[in-house]
C-alpha cells in the first residue's frame, strides 16, 4: 500500500518537484557561498550544481537529457522548468531594468566597448572551437556564443538546433568566463588601469558577464560596480541579437 502511494506520488506533480529541487539547490549554494564569505559566487555555484546533477542523471540513466531523464523529474518537470520557453521568458523580463539614459551616460566609448566586447569574445570562442576540430558552423557559432555569456550560448544553440552536448559546452565556456572574471579582476586591475568610472564602463562592456563584472569590480573597487553594471546589462541582449544572426552567417561563410 505504502509503495503504491510512493509510486503514485513520484509519478505526479513533476513541475512542483522540480521547483522544490531548484529552490533547494539555490538555498544550499547560497548558504555555502555565505559560509565561504564569497556571496557573489552563489549563482555560479548553483549553475555548476545543476551541471553536476545533469552529469549524475546522465550517468545513471544513460540518456542525453541529464536530470530530465530521471523519471520523477521527467515529463513536464526539469524539462519544462529549464526549457527554452521559460528561459527566454525570464531573460527577456530582465530588460525591464535597462535604462537607455545609462547607455547615453556611458557615451560612444560605452557603445564601442559593447560591440568590441561581443565581437571579440565571439571571435575568440569560435576560433578555439575551429582549432580544436569543430567543423559544423552551428556548433562553432554556439561555442563562440558561450564565450560571450552562458545565456547567449544556449539561446544561440536553440536557434541553430545544435545538440544538448554542444549547448552544455557553451554554458561551461560562459561559466569559465564568469568565474575567471570574478577571480582575476582584482589582480589585474592596476595593470589595465581599472580605477575610474570610464575604464569601469569599458570593462563592463568588454567582459559583459553581469555576475562576473559585478563580482569582480566589487572585489576591486566597490564604488565602480554601478559603472561596470551600466554597460554590462546591455551585453547579453546585444549578444542574443547579433550572434545567432550575423555571427552565424559569418561563421558559415568562413567554414563553407
Amino acid at each position, binding site marked *: 500500500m505504502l509503495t503504491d502511494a510512493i509510486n503514485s506520488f513520484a509519478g505526479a506533480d513533476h513541475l512542483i518537484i522540480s521547483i522544490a529541487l*531548484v529552490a533547494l539547490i*539555490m538555498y544550499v549554494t547560497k548558504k555555502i557561498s555565505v559560509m565561504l564569505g564569497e556571496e557573489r559566487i552563489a549563482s555560479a555555484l548553483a549553475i555548476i550544481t*545543476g551541471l553536476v546533477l545533469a552529469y549524475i542523471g546522465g550517468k545513471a540513466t544513460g540518456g542525453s537529457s541529464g536530470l530530465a531523464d530521471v523519471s520523477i523529474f521527467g515529463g513536464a518537470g526539469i524539462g519544462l522548468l529549464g526549457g527554452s520557453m521559460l528561459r*527566454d521568458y525570464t531573460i527577456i523580463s530582465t530588460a525591464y531594468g535597462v535604462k537607455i539614459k545609462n547607455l547615453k551616460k556611458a557615451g560612444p*566609448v560605452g557603445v564601442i566597448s559593447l560591440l568590441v566586447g561581443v565581437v571579440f569574445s565571439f571571435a575568440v570562442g569560435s576560433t578555439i572551437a575551429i582549432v580544436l576540430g569543430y567543423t559544423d558552423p552551428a556548433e562553432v557559432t554556439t561555442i563562440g556564443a558561450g564565450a560571450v555569456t552562458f545565456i547567449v550560448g544556449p539561446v544561440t544553440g536553440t536557434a541553430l538546433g545544435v545538440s544538448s552536448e554542444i549547448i552544455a*559546452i557553451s554554458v561551461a565556456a560562459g561559466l569559465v568566463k564568469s568565474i575567471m572574471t570574478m577571480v582575476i579582476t582584482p589582480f589585474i586591475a592596476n595593470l589595465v*588601469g581599472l580605477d575610474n568610472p570610464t575604464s569601469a564602463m569599458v570593462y563592463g562592456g568588454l567582459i559583459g558577464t553581469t555576475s562576473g563584472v559585478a563580482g569582480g569590480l566589487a572585489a576591486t573597487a566597490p564604488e565602480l560596480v554601478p559603472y561596470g553594471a551600466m554597460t554590462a546589462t546591455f551585453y547579453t541582449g546585444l549578444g542574443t541579437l547579433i550572434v545567432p544572426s550575423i555571427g552565424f552567417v559569418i561563421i558559415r561563410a568562413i567554414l563553407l
Partner: protein
Amino acid sequence: MEIIGMGFVAFFMLLGSFLGRILGQFIGTGGDVGGVGLAMLFMVLAVNYLENKRGRVFKERTENGIKFLSALYIPIIVAMAARLNVVGAINGGLVAILAGGLATVGAMFLVPLLSKLKK
C-alpha cells in the same frame, strides 16, 4: 495587477519570436534567430518611452509581475543546466575552458586600449 506585467513581457517575447522566425527563414536556418535580443530591444525602447511620457512605467503590482520573472532567471538557468547532456560534453571540457578563458583574459587587456578613446 501582476498578470499584466507578465503579459507585457509575454507580448514582447511573442513579437521577438515572430520576427526572429522571419529572420531564421531569411538566413536559412529555420527556428527563432535573434528573437530574444529583438524582444529585449523592443521592450527597452517601450519601457523607456513610457517612462519619459508618464514619469513611471507601471503601477507597483504590475511591476511586481515583471520583477518576479526577473528574479526567476538564475533558478531557471540552474534548471536548464540540470537537463543538459553534460556526460557527452565532458570531452569538450578543454574547448570550454580555452574559449571562455582566452575570451576573458583577452577582453581584459583591451580595457586600457578602449579607455583611451575617451579623452
